């Protein structure tokens, strides 16, 4: 009974992905005629050739892919560094106004992202960086939830070791960088994963701070425009599903390699949604 229920749910959760993979190797007519089949007949690489820039009607996927990689990497590195810096200060350093800064952080974290689309656009416009990589990266490079996770982690680390380092004359930054940060590895890995996944999957932010030309598209915004925007023509399900698969693969690889940390992240930073 238990296994019947589990098997049923597993099919429900896995089958769509299998269909997705199979369909990306189908021809358009085959995709429409046999939507449930997991065997492409005939086996066809046309969609993937288009994705990799060959054949008629190709789409600049490689450009989008490199945009995605660059942006997700820069955002992740920036977030991990800046979030832990701020988290450390809020947890360990005594400075005037710390309580206020922390309270403000909590307040800012509770602002729903839907209320931020127009505000972000206004500021990006005001700063004159609309439709640039700066506009895509800078607003994402610090996130409140990440700071919070790091602060919580540092709170749980015993203080004596860094005090010892300080007694030996290490500077505050040096103590942070070479003593405390290495201890925070579990939290850093979690934050890295959350940041990469979050910025890789980001959609609405890029939608409002760029013009929507292929130049600044990422895989996700590119896919959206292919599916429902100006680039969409016809059904082209093999192409669309292949593109969606390409968008999913990096996150999937990281997920299967580092599940433990994903699960940690879900329970620690269950803020984003």
């Amino acid at each position, binding site marked *: 009974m238990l296994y019947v*229920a589990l098997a049923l749910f597993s099919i*429900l*959760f896995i089958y769509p992905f299998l*269909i997705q993979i199979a*369909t990306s190797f189908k021809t358009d007519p085959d995709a*429409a*005629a046999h*939507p449930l089949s997991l065997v492409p007949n005939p086996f066809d690489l046309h969609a993937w050739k288009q994705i990799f820039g060959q054949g008629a009607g190709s789409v600049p996927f490689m450009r989008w892919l490199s945009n995605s990689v660059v942006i997700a990497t820069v955002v992740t590195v920036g977030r991990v560094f800046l979030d832990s*810096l701020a988290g*450390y*200060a809020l947890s360990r*350093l*005594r*400075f005037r*106004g710390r309580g206020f800064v922390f309270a403000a*952080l*909590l307040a*800012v974290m*509770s602002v*729903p992202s*839907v*209320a*931020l*689309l*127009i*505000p*972000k*656009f*206004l*500021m990006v416009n005001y700063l004159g960086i609309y439709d640039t990589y700066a506009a895509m990266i800078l*607003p994402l490079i610090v996130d*409140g939830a990440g700071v*919070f996770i790091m602060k*919580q982690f540092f709170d*749980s680390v015993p203080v*004596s*070791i860094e*005090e010892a*380092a300080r007694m030996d004359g290490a500077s*505050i930054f040096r103590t942070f960088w070479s003593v405390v940060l*290495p201890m925070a590895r579990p939290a850093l890995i979690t934050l890295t994963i959350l940041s990469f996944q979050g910025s890789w*999957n980001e*959609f609405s932010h890029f*939608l409002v701070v760029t013009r929507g030309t292929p130049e600044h598209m990422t895989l*996700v915004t590119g*896919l959206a425009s292919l*599916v*429902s925007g100006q680039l969409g023509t016809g*059904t082209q*399900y093999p192409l669309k599903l292949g*593109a*969606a698969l390409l*968008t999913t693969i990096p*996150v999937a690889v990281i997920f299967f390699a580092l*599940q433990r940390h994903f699960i940690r992240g*879900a*329970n620690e930073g*269950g*803020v984003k*949604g």
Partner: protein
Amino acid sequence: MTQLGTANQAVGTEAMTPTAQPPRGRRGGGGIRSGEGIAGWVFVSPMIVILGLFMVIPIVMALWVSLTNWNGSVNPFSGGPGAEFVGVRNYSDLFARDGLTRSNFMQSIGNTFWYVLFVVPLQTLLALGLALLVNNRMLKAKGFFRTAFYFPSVTSSIAISTVFLFLFSATGAVNALLGAIGAGQPNWFTDDRGLVHLLFNAVGVDNPGWAQGEVLGRSLWDWVSGPSVALSVIIILVVWTTSGTFMLMFIAALQDLPVEIDEAAALDGTSGWQKLRHVTIPMIRPTLFLVITLGLIGTWQVFDQIYVMGKGNPNGTTLTPAYLSYQQSFGNFKYGSGAAMAFVVFAIIVVLTRIQRWVLTDKDERRPLLRRSKAVAR
């Protein structure tokens, strides 16, 4: 200081000597805490600059814009044509004045009301059900099932929406399946009929007299339509993708329950269902409330899926306030009106969360508030 042992192993720096344990310094000047005031501000300054620049200040700017009729072509703070101050008119247009803006907005609110009413209970129940299944002590291959159920939650909402567009297309997998069992095959994304209306129609009721009254510019009959068939696909999609995350939260809560309670319940001869109802659920109540709260916050913000799967079509039945706000601003260049909508959604979310917390603290004051949710914004 009890964890010192493990921490030592983790670090292993040469700086650790048993003597290096000074009293928590508060000697002022010169101590090991010297310079922390400056360093603290230096460390938090990138965060303050970024969050201030891209969240705090722009929200104030947007509040101002929501009081203007800014059209995007001039400086929004200059006043004059294209950016005139109009007071609360953008807000009153949403609630009090007849017109397209109000009817669209009210329809989006109605849609979202049904959407929330379906998604939040369904995702909570599914997540709890999956967690109970996966948490069974006898179960083998727990990891596999947990992975399978959680995986959709980590992937891109746009990519998943693309897959569902195919699955639910006229010639898609779902219709193939329905055809195989001889059921009807709806044209999912173009079907604007509401589920409650369909139910009424099934018993022969269609737009009856009692449903003609107008509430906020919309007939009662429209308000009770239920989610349209098209919106139902999005409901299924969202329940399917989010239940994995919430399942993990429930698993964490279930694993925190002391084993003795299980045993005591078993000795008392309670059935599985009784145990669930009288023992397990009351004990994971904080998590249950957390999941519902996060669900409420998330559902009112649905945007990505709408953008890809409906854009309000068919007939406005997949409009949500978040999408409408975007559409009004970046499609119709009525930023003031769009910003006003965004703030109304913001207010709704804040109010819902407050109510949630109030319900939680009122009945169960002794329990620490949302114990497992330390890392969650409130």
